[in-house]
């Protein structure tokens, strides 16, 4: 497997920011699940609990106008990129103040103002569209980079092959970020994939590929830095396979019967969120008080967004005729 020749290291400030993004994702995930349990939200929910380091480290390194295309488990990718939470909550509640006016919902959240361009419910489809955004950036000479987020299951669909080949052939500024959480829905990675590391496939496309500890902030930071630098300098795409674990199954309510209980328990024991928190304090990057204050402020932001979202009115039925085309459909 490929090793980075020159690994960038996050300083204390970077680690604190990565932790902030992780905590924002985790606290928001917790609030969504609590609201679902109370019956105040009705939606399919694909929690990414346990996978927070991946988008947190990448988002720390992205600019506001860098773009992402993500998937149905991608709320974490947006929250890590600092998407405002009010339009997010109004959208998942199906309300008019939602970022998509309640017409997309949790699987199609979009916020172009911060580069959140596409959220797809189709496995693998984030990748070909990320290429197009990257092609536009290349034509514009903008130095923008585009991240395509997807899972290990999507590495086995045809769109992966077509998109990675084209991105490499055209030297597109894309990061292909595969969160390998070990399960394609309920099927174990090794039962559906003969190769031991998805990153090995990168060689077949003529691009660098790395298997990264997706739960380790240093490793994610180093590899994401290298991939972003490469993309920005016009050298082309990189495939990052980020090994992680999905704590809450494929979709909320899934009882994980297909998981090895001991493996899951060990993964949860190694939860990257409290681990990074402990490290920040141990290494003197932040104090207990500072982190408690950070948590309180994030929880307040989330609570405010939640109230805003749940109290926003539903969309008007006229919305059925709007945004089908630029021109409103006749009544």
């Amino acid at each position, binding site marked *: 497997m490929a090793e980075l020749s020159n690994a960038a290291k996050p300083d204390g400030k970077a680690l604190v920011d990565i932790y902030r993004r992780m905590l924002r994702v985790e606290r928001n995930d917790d609030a969504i699940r609590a609201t679902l349990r109370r019956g105040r939200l009705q939606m399919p929910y694909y929690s990414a609990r346990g996978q927070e380091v991946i988008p947190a480290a990448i988002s720390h390194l992205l600019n506001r106008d860098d773009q992402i295309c993500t998937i149905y488990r991608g709320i974490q990718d947006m929250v890590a990129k600092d998407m405002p939470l009010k339009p997010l909550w109004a959208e998942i509640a199906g309300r008019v103040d939602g970022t998509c006016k309640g*017409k997309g919902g949790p699987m199609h959240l979009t916020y172009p103002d911060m580069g959140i361009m596409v959220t797809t419910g*189709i496995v693998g489809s984030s990748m070909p569209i990320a290429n197009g955004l990257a092609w536009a950036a290349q034509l514009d000479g903008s130095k923008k980079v585009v991240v395509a987020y997807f899972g290990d299951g999507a590495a086995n669909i045809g769109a992966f092959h077509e998109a990675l080949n084209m991105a490499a052939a055209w030297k597109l500024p894309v990061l292909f970020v595969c969160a390998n959480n070990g399960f394609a829905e309920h099927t174990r990675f090794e039962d559906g994939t003969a190769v031991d590391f998805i990153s090995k496939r990168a060689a077949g496309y003529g691009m660098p590929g790395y298997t990264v500890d997706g739960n380790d902030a240093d490793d994610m930071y180093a590899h994401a830095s290298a991939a972003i630098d490469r993309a920005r300098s016009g050298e082309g795409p990189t495939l990052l396979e980020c090994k992680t674990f999905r704590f809450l199954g494929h979709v909320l309510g899934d009882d994980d019967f297909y998981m090895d209980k001991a493996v899951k328990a060990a993964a949860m024991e190694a939860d990257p969120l409290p681990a990074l928190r402990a490290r920040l304090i141990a290494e003197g990057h932040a104090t207990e008080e500072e982190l408690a204050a950070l948590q309180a402020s994030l929880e307040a932001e989330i609570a405010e967004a939640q109230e805003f979202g749940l109290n926003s009115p539903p969309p008007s039925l006229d919305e059925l005729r709007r945004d*089908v085309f630029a021109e409103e459909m006749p009544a």
Partner: protein
Amino acid sequence: MTEMIKMNGIQAINAAMMQAMEADPKVLVLGEDVGDREGGGVTGTMKGLSTKFGTERVKSTPISEQAIMGAAIGAAMAGYKPVAEIMMMNFTTVCMDMIVNHAAKLRFMSGGQTSVPLTIRTLTGAGWQTAGQHSDFFEGWFAHTAGIKVVAGSNPADLKGLLLSCIDDPDPCIFIEGGMTLFAPGEVAADQGPIPLGKAKVVVPGTDVTIVSWSAQVLRCQMALQGLAEAGISAELIDLRTISPWDRECVLESVAKTGRAMIVHEAVRSFGPGAEIAATINEELFGQLKKPVKRLGAPECPVPFAKVLEDAYIVQPADIVAAAVEMMG
């Protein structure tokens, strides 16, 4: 007096592309073999573009329909106006996810925050013995998908004008190039500009029966005109030009006048676009019709190879005359 230039459909499409790319640097071309080094497209419609506008704007792609469509969608979202060639309409099946789930739906699903001003050009049509996977008219599939416009010209002037409109449209359009229409000669005004989408054209006025058709079948309807006249039937031929959204006003006005309607398309008759048009005529003009609406389309089978079978598969001018005679009886 505007200068009229003799050309075929290939030249008309090429002229539209030249004009659009010249006028707007945001217009891009991508697809298999579209560059000049690769021949300028399978029928040569893209000839000269990469030489004139460069291979950055005119990109030959790998044989990867999903990647082509994804690249076109992303570039369109970022403000470009890509014209993506899917060599044959049957190959759109390989990228239906990109077209149906993404290009057509992103504007709605994002609440209008993103849009996909994309044109998909694609060639098809029976009559060339290309059999079951290179000949299908799938306009009905796309017309059944909210969020994408479906366009098909039948003559060089319309091909040019409609393609210009597709490229400038703020939403995704699929522009169908019926093989027969590419080779049929015609005259195109030197300054031919965009022809509005959603507007049909009365090709020949008449009083007895309205014939609604599009793409290559318009040409076969025109071949039937003499036979119809000999049978004493005054047919009004309408070229729909845009299949979705279709020009209900033009069709209904004509049928209200003639009292008889026939839809002629190359696609399979069952569940074809003719059914939608027939149903609308029945809903709007029930009681004014002299005869039930007739639909002429292909039998429920894949496009066959053997010439004798292929000829029987396609609705021919004689079939159109026979159907009209029957309606008059």
